[in-house]
């Protein structure tokens, strides 16, 4: 209250008019709004106490001043004057403005201009009423910010949000949920019911029931279907809002897509399972090898005791043949469980793949096309080439078998993938290299259903008839690839085909064949299978031997006669089409060659003429599949003997 009013209050001889003015001023001064009367020249003619207080001035210092003086010419001309002019045309004007004062910072105001007097027809003044709406404004602003913040959460987080009505009718979904549910518009989803997305509606009903106690619930992983019907798994939590009478108002749900996480978990679990089986199988194989050593030892003793003419002699040979087969089996198990010693050299995967494809082409039925549109590449990997051959041969043979009935196409490709791709594909194994070679083998065969797909690397897991295939093929492949530090993944669709992805770490080591004592040993390698023998010789050359390849056993005589110097060793590797190991052993033993010889026979053939081995010029007999380590050891033993 100002001094002028106080002096009036003390005046005893107040006329009715001055009393009325006094009351009016009292009301005006006690209003929380800033009130002023402005004339057509934009001059303040009357201000209330609130106005004076806000501007920290006396009414005397404001009355008579123009608005431009008080508020500054810029504010006046741009903001105040246009509104005042509009008001003088006869309408009430309302606007919001903010001013920053040094005392109280930024304040927000709502300003109302009313024409005055209203009824005379000639507007001479206007009443300006200004409310401080700063608190309201700040609250509003806070609310908007909060909402935007929430919107950002809702939009940016990869968590799907949904609000639905009491019956599950979808009211609102966020962008993430649209993505999870593979639907391109919210409107489309709003025409559906949450129930439609549950793989089992029974679970939906159960969730609704559990939510009805008004408490938030997590339901863990739930199998769902997308808008388009694809099966997915989401982690779901929900909250049911109830009104005062206990009726459901709405239900909110959060969805996290855990299909990917589940896939990784399953992959890890499978890897662990394989490790466990491997350890178990490896242990059994170890004990079994002890038993086999005993059997083969006594058989050898028997062989010595029994005269060659006795019919029992053949029987003992058969025991020894069975031991060979069993040995090959335990060896496969040990390869799967990564417990065999390996001889590794730097090998170009491209070369091995090319030979494998060449070999398979030569034996595959004509109904099966093998496409390999890859160009020569430098793809160095530290591995046993003969093992890599087994990997590719196995995968391509499987592909052929899956297309046996209808025929089809196998596509083999090879390429590099870098670090980013390794991470994207989330390879399980410890990353051992910056770069990986990716060999892809794709078929258009029967494919496999997911339950089968999960188990294909388990030993003795086979879909083939009993007796057809050992069920160890893919286990061995897995063992070999893991041992190299690679990984093998597979995707498959029933009736469409399967794709195997073999990742092999690139080795940039500079390879030098180990120095051999004395002269480089020369090995004559005879085999009807030129592809496999090329891989073998590739492997042996990297370990320091000089290799001569002959593809026809009958060429043997000529090829040796042609050369001035005899080889240090002859290796005969039998394949199904050529002279059997037994026949070769007899022929070779009766020839006048004095060069030591190693026989490699097919896994299912064995050798009956076991007694020709070791005792004579034939030093060793190996059964396929033979690893580089085995053949190298055999060579060393044979040459040294």
């Amino acid at each position: 209250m100002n001094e002028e009013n106080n002096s009036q209050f003390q005046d005893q001889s107040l006329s009715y008019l001055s009393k009325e003015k006094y009351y009016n001023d009292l009301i005006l001064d006690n209003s929380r709004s800033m009130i002023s009367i402005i004339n057509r020249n934009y001059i303040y003619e009357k201000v209330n106490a609130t106005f004076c207080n806000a501007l920290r001035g006396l009414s005397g210092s404001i009355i008579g001043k123009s608005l431009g003086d008080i508020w500054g010419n810029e504010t006046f001309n741009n903001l105040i004057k246009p509104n005042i002019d509009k008001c003088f045309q006869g309408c009430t004007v309302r606007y919001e403005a903010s001013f920053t004062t040094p005392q109280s910072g930024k304040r927000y105001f709502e300003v109302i201009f009313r024409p005055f007097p209203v009824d005379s027809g000639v507007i001479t003044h206007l009443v300006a009423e200004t409310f401080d709406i700063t608190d309201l404004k700040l609250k509003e602003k806070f609310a908007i910010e909060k909402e935007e913040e929430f919107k950002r959460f809702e939009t940016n987080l990869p968590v799907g949000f949904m609000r639905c009505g009491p019956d599950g009718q979808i009211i609102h979904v966020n962008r993430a949920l649209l993505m999870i549910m593979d639907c391109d518009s919210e409107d489309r989803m709003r025409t559906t019911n949450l129930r439609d997305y549950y793989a089992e509606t029974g679970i939906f009903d159960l969730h609704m029931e559990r939510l009805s106690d008004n408490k938030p619930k997590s339901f863990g992983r739930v199998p769902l279907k997308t808008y388009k019907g694809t099966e997915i798994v989401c982690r779901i939590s929900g909250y049911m809002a109830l009104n005062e009478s206990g009726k459901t108002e709405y239900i909110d749900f959060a969805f996290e897509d855990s299909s990917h996480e589940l896939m990784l978990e399953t992959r890890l679990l499978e890897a662990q399972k394989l490790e466990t089986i491997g350890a178990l199988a490896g242990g059994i194989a170890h004990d079994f090898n002890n038993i086999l050593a005993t059997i083969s030892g006594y058989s050898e003793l028997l062989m010595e005791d029994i005269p060659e003419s006795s019919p029992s002699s053949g029987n003992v040979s058969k025991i020894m043949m069975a031991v060979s087969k069993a040995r090959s089996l335990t060896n496969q198990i040990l390869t799967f469980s990564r417990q065999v010693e390996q001889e590794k050299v730097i090998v170009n995967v491209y070369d091995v793949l090319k030979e494998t494809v060449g070999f398979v082409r030569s034996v595959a039925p004509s109904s099966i096309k093998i496409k390999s549109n890859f160009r020569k590449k430098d793809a160095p990997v530290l591995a046993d080439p003969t093992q890599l051959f087994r990997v590719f041969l196995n995968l391509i043979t499987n592909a052929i078998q899956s297309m046996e009935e209808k025929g089809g196409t196998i596509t083999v490709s090879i390429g590099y993938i870098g670090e980013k791709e390794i991470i994207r594909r989330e390879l399980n194994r410890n990353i051992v290299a910056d770069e990986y070679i990716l060999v892809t083998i794709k078929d258009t065969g029967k494919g496999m259903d997911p339950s089968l797909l999960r188990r294909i690397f388990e030993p003795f897991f086979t879909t083939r008839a009993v007796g057809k295939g050992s069920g160890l093929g893919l286990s061995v492949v897995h063992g070999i690839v893991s041992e190299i530090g690679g990984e093998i993944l597979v995707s498959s669709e029933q009736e469409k085909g399967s794709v195997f992805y073999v990742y092999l770490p690139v080795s940039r080591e500079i390879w030098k064949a180990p120095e051999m004592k004395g002269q480089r040993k020369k090995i004559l390698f005879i085999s009807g299978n030129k592809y496999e023998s090329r891989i073998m010789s590739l492997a042996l050359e990297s370990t320091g031997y000089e290799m001569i390849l002959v593809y026809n056993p009958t060429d043997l005589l000529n090829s040796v006669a042609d050369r001035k110097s005899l080889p240090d060793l002859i290796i005969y590797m039998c394949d199904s089409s050529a002279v059997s190991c037994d026949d070769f052993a007899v022929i070779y033993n009766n020839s006048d060659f004095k060069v030591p010889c190693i026989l490699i026979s097919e896994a299912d053939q064995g050798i009956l003429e076991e007694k020709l081995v070791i005792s004579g010029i034939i030093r060793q007999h190996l059964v396929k599949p033979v690893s580089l380590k085995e053949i190298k050891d055999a060579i060393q033993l044979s040459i040294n003997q």
Partner: protein
Amino acid sequence: MPGILVVEDDNDLREMLKVSLNRKRFTVLEAENGKDAIAHFKPSVTDLVITDLIMPEEDGLKVIMKLREMKPSLKIVAISGGGKAGPGSYLNLAKALGADEVYSKPFSVNEMITRIEELLEIEQD
């Protein structure tokens, strides 16, 4: 005849080796595990040792090292069946530790004996 110590935890296999070696008139000493082999080692009558590599109570690698220490001229043949040990290369290790020959099970006993005769420089019949 030279004495051969057979260190092998599998009784049947050890017995087989003993029978085979006896046939060639070798004197055979036996040990069931590495610990026994080391404890009861008789350098004066042992010319060669055949040892398994993976055994309970002191593995074969230790046997190779200890016995070599006790008798540097001792010949050593190591045998291994793979498994249990994990992906290590036990046979290669054995070779590095001085085994004269290594065999992985199952092996040909005749082949092994031929080699043993070579190692002991015995005229073959």
